[in-house]
């Protein structure tokens, strides 16, 4: 049975550096992220929001405290466990990081092939379908070098979503997009939450999309200073 809270953070402290250079970046964070919700992390530069995102996304080892992701404790998890968990996640980066030698559809296919061999025709159909959804059906066979910044970002979004991930982590996904495209992408993530119960955690400074968020968590100096959520998504979880 799917967890109500696919992300549970308790007593999380995080440090960078060692010895005298050791600096604490996060202080006693406690967060439960509800399944199917769209959560926005906000805060000034250096507030720790990206650190939180990388810890939740199995991209960094947990120093102290607990992060449970999809029921798996990440503190002291092995590299193999982290890699395995990451294949159930979707990542959207501010820099699209598309592979320059792969076409749009091939980049999207990479999001599917991580799960192993499958029917190539079905995989290609799925990749084409998601490219249609992000409005790039006529750019499937284009290399990234021949796409605009916004189109590249939409390919990156398609790559992150094509495998129906349980959780999507996004870092400024709309930064390179115009208002309409940005709205379309966030609306798609919102719809995924409602239809597939995909959980999205997004770092953004884009005030245009805050209205679509179910929950907005504001960090400053490694601490949560504000945490607001829409009532429609039920009571606020206990810290």
């Amino acid at each position: 049975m799917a967890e109500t809270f696919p992300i549970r953070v308790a007593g999380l402290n995080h440090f960078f550096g060692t010895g005298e250079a050791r600096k604490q970046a996060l202080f006693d964070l406690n967060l439960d992220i509800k399944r199917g919700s769209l959560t926005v992390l906000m805060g000034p530069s250096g507030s720790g929001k990206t650190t939180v995102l990388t810890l939740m996304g199995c991209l960094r080892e947990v120093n102290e405290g607990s992060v449970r992701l999809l029921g798996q404790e990440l503190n002291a998890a092995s590299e193999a466990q982290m890699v395995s968990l990451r294949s159930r996640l979707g990542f959207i980066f501010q820099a699209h990081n598309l592979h320059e030698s792969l076409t749009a559809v091939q980049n999207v296919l990479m999001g599917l092939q991580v799960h192993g061999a499958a029917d190539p025709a079905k995989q290609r159909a799925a990749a084409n379908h998601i490219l249609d959804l992000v409005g790039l059906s006529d750019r499937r066979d284009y290399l990234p070098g021949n796409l605009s910044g916004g189109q590249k970002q939409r390919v990156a979004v398609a790559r992150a979503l094509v495998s129906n991930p349980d959780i999507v982590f996004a870092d400024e996904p709309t930064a390179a997009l115009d208002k309409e495209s940005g709205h379309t992408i966030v609306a798609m993530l919102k719809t995924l939450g409602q239809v597939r119960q995909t959980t999205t955690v997004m770092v953004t400074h884009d005030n245009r999309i805050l209205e679509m968020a179910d929950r907005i968590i504001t960090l400053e100096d490694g601490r949560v200073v504000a945490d607001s959520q829409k009532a429609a998504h039920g009571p606020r979880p206990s810290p």
Partner: protein
Amino acid sequence: MSRLLTYLFGRLPIGWLQLSHNKARLIAAVSGVAFANLLVFMQLGIMGALNGSTIAPYAMLNTDIIISSQEGNTLTDSGEIARARMFQALGVPGVADATPLYIGNLPFTLADGSSVSLLSFGFDVAKPGFTSPEIAKSLGELAIENTVLLDRDTRGMPASVIEALDTGGRYPFEANGNTLVAIETMNVGGGFLADGMLVMSDQTFLRSFPARTSGAPDQILLHVDDGVSVETVVDRLRAALPTESVKIQGTDASAQADLDFMSSERPTGIIFGFGVFMGILVGLVIVYQVLSTDVADHLSEYATFKAMGYGQPFFLGIVFEEAIVLAIFGFLPGLVVSIGLYAGLNAVTGLPVAMNASRAILVFLGTLAACTLSGAIATRRLAAADPADLF
């Protein structure tokens, strides 16, 4: 190509797509590998010619055991040995027959005034059983004073001479103050040892080399009795003869010892061996440079794949895929150009340089191994692809 590789790998051929995306880099990399292959092929070709030349005279012999002086280095670079050792050997159980072999370099001036050296072999014409069938059939004619068989590949020898001999003609010539008459040709190939070869009777040999005596041949050839092993007789001979002054070896062992001497003790063997090593090193460096640059250029993409859940085997697969593509694409032009250069070298120098399947396969496997090794070293850079740095 992409579809074929996708079918073979069951995934997108990232390595191939990455390499083929940057055509200029691909061409440079393939050219580098081809050049390294060319270097290795040329060194191996010349080394093969050296080895072929070294053991070519063995093809003229039909012998089980060879007794030679400890001072000698190879069959043709030998010291003299007392013929009395032959009679001692004949007294050893298992030795059926024996014959002396005389070897010397005969200087000869061609019609155009250039000097060549003819490696001359003097056989006892009464014992054709110690020579190859090709020579044995003509050995009786060599009983006639001053007649010789001439190597048809002798450098500088006019084609008209060989044609005349092929059609039953004679070719008289003067060498070392003695008039010799070539009555037929044979096919041995001089290569590095000499410009050509002559086969003659021991009597003609001794007339051509006045300083030599019949009591001191260069080699003693032995046949063993039927049913007796060569090794057994070699052991008996070593017990009976003074091994501090004579070497006693089976024919195959003698040929191998000659090869070992030429490859490890002669400067030419060492130089060409070093050339092969340099070729491999050049290939390793080129492929490493290409692959490590490629990995460095795609670190953010690799980090993205890591974030998506791809494990280390996937990345190793990409790098090794690139290494194998470079090995195959670099080998083929290297092979083709080498075959052409072999033909050119053979035409210009007369050296027995030729491509053979075993060498081509050996170099291909070596190229694969070297590219894979380079790839393995280049994968260390993958550790720098940290997905946490993407945010």
